[in-house]
């Protein structure tokens, strides 16, 4: 069965490229949400295998969305990878304290995104 990934990012182009990459290169199923609030609803409904979550979003940013996901019984065990364009040392500490599965960086390589996700989550990838 293909992996199912939920991408939560407010930027249309990033969502489109990440989805294209994961679907085309890895054959995974991708669902997308343009905001933290919509992402939380989708995560509850769809129970994805992992969530790729943008850090900098308006209204509800990535860390806030992550804390909300962790507080809900339906989503508290779904691994979350934060996706960010920039991490300063203070942010790195803040993110690792949150308990996310990993932090990945934009810009990502569409050819290797799925492999990179599989590697940080300990998934078999061929």
């Amino acid at each position: 069965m293909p992996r199912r990934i939920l991408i939560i990012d407010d930027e249309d182009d990033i969502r489109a490229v990440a989805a294209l990459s994961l679907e085309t290169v890895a054959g995974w199923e991708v669902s997308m949400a343009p905001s933290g609030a919509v992402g939380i609803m989708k995560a509850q409904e769809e129970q994805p295998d992992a969530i790729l979550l943008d850090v900098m979003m308006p209204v509800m940013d990535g860390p806030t969305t992550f804390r909300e996901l962790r507080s809900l019984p339906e989503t508290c065990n779904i691994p979350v990878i934060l996706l960010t364009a920039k991490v300063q040392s203070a942010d790195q500490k803040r993110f690792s304290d949150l308990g996310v599965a990993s932090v990945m960086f934009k810009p990502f390589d569409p050819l290797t995104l799925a492999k990179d996700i599989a590697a940080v989550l300990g998934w078999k990838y061929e």
Partner: protein
Amino acid sequence: MSDTAQLAAKLNEIWRASRPIILERMAVLHATQAALAADLHNHDARREGREAAHKLAGVLGTFGLPRGSELASALEEILQADTPLTADDLTTLATHIAELESVIASKP
């Protein structure tokens, strides 16, 4: 067509669809540059420019423009610093914005 070629073709489609928003972000950077040239303490312009640079930094490399991401990151860094901007910062800002414009224009 191989998977890689298919992916490249689709990425180009997404690039073309994304181009208007990328050009909008460049327009924000130009507006920021003009506003800061008039008033180095214009915090709103600085914040808007920083946000536009951040988004460009995150996306350009994904479309095969790593130099674009580097320049946008450098712009974000300049605009993010807590210290007051200097005339030298403004010069660097203008140089980076001009180069960034060329990088984006180089990809049809």
